[in-house]
């Protein structure tokens, strides 16, 4: 089981799911209509390290963070 958390303005509670890769996470999140407006704009971190590859393997206890568009300063 892995955990997906949604940061900043997405305002959605974390969800847990079975997923072997980030591609599995993508498929499951696409089923959630509340995320439709977010996924194409969001970056992804795995255990607090930014990731760029959908084939990234996941293991039990991993934490995936969804980071919406930013504006510091």
């Amino acid at each position, binding site marked *: 089981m892995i955990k997906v958390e949604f940061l*900043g303005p997405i305002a959605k509670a974390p969800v847990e799911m079975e997923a072997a890769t980030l591609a599995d996470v993508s498929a499951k999140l696409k089923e959630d209509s509340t995320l439709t407006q977010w996924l194409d704009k*969001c970056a992804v971190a795995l255990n607090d390290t930014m990731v760029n590859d959908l084939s990234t393997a996941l293991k039990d206890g991993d934490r995936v963070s969804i980071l919406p568009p930013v504006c*510091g300063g």
Partner: protein
Amino acid sequence: MELYSGSLDTKEIFGRWLDEQADSNYGAYISFVGTIRAEDDIEALSFDIYEPVLQQWFDAWQERAKAVGAVVKMAHAIGDVPVHTSSYVSAVFSPKRRVALELIDAFVEDFKANAPIWKYDVKNGERIYAADRSTAMDGAGLLA
């Protein structure tokens, strides 16, 4: 990297950073202050920060600065920051001015694009995500 609840005490921060480097033999110290402007009837801006990724972003910049003999510094506010006060300060120390001038430009611009910080307008006590001023981070859209 320093994070504070609410507005920054810019004079204290800049003064302390100067004191810390007083004997480091840096020839240049360039500072940047971000101040909340009164516009669009906002009372304040408000900020969320994801500190673990921000720390990694900052550590990578510290390494980049070190490679050219420089040091980067930054402080940012969390939560509400009223207009005419400061939410963000950064600085670069380097042996000579050219490195510091170039680094502060690249550092502040990359901060705007990739530091995991979310901004909200505060109007009538309500937080409204500043979607139109926000930038998708590098690698955005991976899961779409």
